[in-house]
């Protein structure tokens, strides 16, 4: 299942906050609401995990995750599902999908125009 990406947005100063919090990190407002945002972003770094403390991943190793800076601001840790080798600065698109553990989490895919 694929959902649109949502992030907490501050109603007072328009800052996008991630990870989710109770108070805006910029203006300390508590008026934070989930807003649909574009999943477009850029891959800043990545790793292939060969060990994990999370039992769900034990049978799935190695497992690729990355750091993606979304166009709307925040940098997120995300599952990485690319059709090609990762490259620094590669444009990616992030969506929310159900993962192997049954959780709705970020999944980054290559953008169509960049897939080889």
């Amino acid at each position: 299942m694929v959902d649109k990406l949502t992030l907490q947005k501050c109603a007072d100063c328009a800052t996008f906050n991630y990870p989710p919090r109770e108070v805006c990190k910029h203006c300390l407002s508590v008026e934070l609401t989930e807003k649909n945002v574009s999943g477009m972003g850029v891959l800043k770094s990545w790793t292939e995990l060969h060990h994990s403390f999370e039992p769900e991943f034990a049978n799935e190793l190695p497992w690729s995750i990355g750091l993606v800076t979304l166009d709307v601001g925040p940098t997120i840790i995300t599952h990485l599902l690319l059709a090609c080798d990762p490259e620094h600065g590669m444009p990616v698109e992030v969506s929310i999908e159900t993962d192997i553990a049954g959780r709705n989490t970020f999944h980054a895919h290559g953008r169509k125009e960049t897939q080889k």
Partner: protein
Amino acid sequence: MNYNGVAITCPTTVTYQRSSEKGAQYFFGQALRGLLKRSGLIKSDIDGLCLSSFTLAPDTGISVADHLGLELSWLEELRLGGASGVISMKRAARAIQNGDADIVACIGAETNNPGSFSDLVSNFSRFSNDAAHPYGAAGPNAVFAMTTRAYMEEYGTTAEDFGRLCLTQRLNSHHNPNALMKDKPLSMQQYLNARTVADPLRLFDCVMPCAGAEAFLVMSTERAHSLELPYSTIASAKELHNPVSDEAVPMSGGWSRFGSQLYQEASYGPSDMNFLQSYDDYPVIVFHQFEDLGFCEKGKASEFVRNTDLSVDSDTLAHNSSGGQLSCGQAGFAGGFLTVTEALRQQQGCTLGKQIKHTDRGVVSGFGMVNYDRGLCSAAAILEKGTH
């Protein structure tokens, strides 16, 4: 404000063990015994305590005072990860200057057993629980793997460059009976062929969690003189938490923000330093410290490691002369005290391993607390050998 009149003394280590069935209180107790033995003081002389431990829960600082039978006029518990050691020294020094305590024991103590480390990393912080664990990234390896990758991409650093650092520290550790890896030689081939933990991190880029303790005493220089204890003094000390940064991946630590001020306040420069005891949870963080603390330019740490003798026999800059955490093991928060105790041992002539050649002054640094995607606490101090 300077740190004049304060002595840091009696470096004490409780032997590291890969694992232990004892609780953290056991290691606090052993550390305090060691401090009393080395100083010739009795327990009632200790009226200040600054402590750090991951594995103390459900106990807290006051529980340690109760457990060890200490009556205290000053008590502080630091949960600042690998920055706790340097910062405990700094805080204790202020307590001495302010007259809040006469003798402060600074102790980082930790137990380790199967499960204690995974329990710890599985519930470390709210942001980690919400935004790192669901990606399989509990514990620091994944985050530091991505920090390492970004550094390599930016500056063209190779695995061999990090390997050189690890190999030199391993050689240093062969002299240190407390280093868990002291009898395990490491070749570049072994380093490169070791199993991948979180690419690009291999096994020997990661520290081995263990049990143990590191401790020292902080008192006035007058008291140290009257007790005839060798001591070190603080020429300057700085800490910075949660530096505001727009870097998606950190290319430096908080040291980059206070490094020049650290030297300015001590009236020294990096080239005046005889040693650096850096916080080596991962090689890339040591590279950050080489750069941020002025030993080389930003992005030039690989070159620096290639061209500089960083061994215990160095004439220029002895680095992590104990072997560091990469070869000694990481006794939790005590890992952040190791840099301090090793510097004190070298300056006070009571080394566990090899005595380095020059000890007039050097830098100790600390780093800790990955709340989400990076370490947030940085600290450093310049220590000078005390004069009698």
